[in-house]
């Protein structure tokens, strides 16, 4: 009659934007042709009991959000997702992590481009992602800048260390460039690239001594 126990769900990602909260997302398996219910269960290295997800809403469908009161930086989290329907249930692989190691920040903001005349270079500036308390040294962030000719295909990636600006020398006068910036905390993942910023390099920059 085409009705089966649910397929095995798969925890696809757990991320924290600020080491103070975090979320996990999962990909449901097949629903076996029946209404299927998903529950995320977790424990920690120091808990003796298993608890259920505190908030299935905040981070969207097939997700679980752990707010500040449910987030501890002092312990590992052990997480599984359980799918259940009338014909049975199926449990995901176990995901184990430590909040410090799943940080993925929002992209940098306020990306600005400026042409500097002497010496001729392009100055790229940006701000850290919102809601990150950088000044306390609580989160140290690294940046990367990528740029390419607007008409070109090949991106060039430049490291910017922990600085929030970078000077780019040696560009083509008269051309349009596209620039993006991304960031990564000391132990975490690269953010998405910031939205594209555009600039035209004035013709006056043909090097006089070339």
């Amino acid at each position, binding site marked *: 009659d085409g009705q089966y126990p649910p397929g095995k769900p798969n925890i696809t990602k757990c991320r924290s934007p600020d080491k103070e909260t975090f979320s996990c997302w999962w990909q449901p398996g097949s629903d076996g042709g029946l209404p299927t219910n998903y529950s995320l269960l977790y424990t920690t*290295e120091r808990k003796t009991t298993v608890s259920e997800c505190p908030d299935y809403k905040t981070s969207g469908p097939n997700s679980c959000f752990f707010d500040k009161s449910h987030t501890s930086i002092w312990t*590992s989290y*052990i997480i599984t997702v359980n799918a259940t329907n009338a014909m049975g249930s199926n449990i995901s692989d176990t995901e*184990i992590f430590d909040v410090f190691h799943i940080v993925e920040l929002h992209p940098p903001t306020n990306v600005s481009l400026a042409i500097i005349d002497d010496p001729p270079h392009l100055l790229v500036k940006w701000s850290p992602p919102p809601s990150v308390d950088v000044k306390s*040294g609580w989160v140290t962030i690294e940046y990367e800048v990528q740029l390419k000719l607007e008409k070109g295909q090949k991106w060039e990636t430049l490291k910017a260390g922990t600085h929030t600006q970078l000077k780019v020398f040696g560009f083509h006068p008269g051309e349009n460039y596209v620039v993006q910036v991304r960031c990564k905390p000391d132990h975490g993942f690269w953010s998405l690239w910031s939205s594209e910023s555009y600039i035209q390099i004035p013709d006056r920059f043909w090097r006089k001594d070339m």
Partner: protein
Amino acid sequence: PICPNGAVNCQISTSDLFERAVQLSHYIHSLSSQIFNEFDEQYAQGRGFIMKSINTCHTSSLNTPEDKEQAQQIHHDDLLNLVLRVLRSWNDPLGHLVSEVQDIKEAPGTILWKAVEIEEQTKQLLEGMENIVQRIHPGELGNEVYSLWSGPPAVPMADENTRLFAFYNLLHCLRRDSHKIDNYLKVLKCSLMQGISC
């Protein structure tokens, strides 16, 4: 299941815990310095509070190391327990600070925000230190109640100068004790944790 980052039985390593504790203690002292300076500039100028606040900290009865030699001679278990005792002894005063700072005339939002943040992060650090001590010496986590602090004045102080001095003194002692905790943890991290480059 595979443990992340080669962790042993999926536990966060003790040196990672220490690294986080030091980041937190550094942050707490930075905030404590900022809140003291802001309060001093705004409310204490010309009132002679600094002279009155000598030898008035509720934690001065705790026999804490006063210089490098003493800090390095004391056994690290004793130093760890001292850190716990100092942290616990600030639980009530910080609660009082947060509730009272809201009644200070025109207290800038930054002073209130910092008081709340210090209270929150100090609880976080205490949780972490208890975790570390539990790791190093399972079962040895004493939890004696520390009420070294004599508590808020019995009778609400009508006189503003006295009330402001009570605050000044609390912030003066918080700045000092948070620096002690930060310094002790940085010393402990280097002496206890192999493989950490100091």
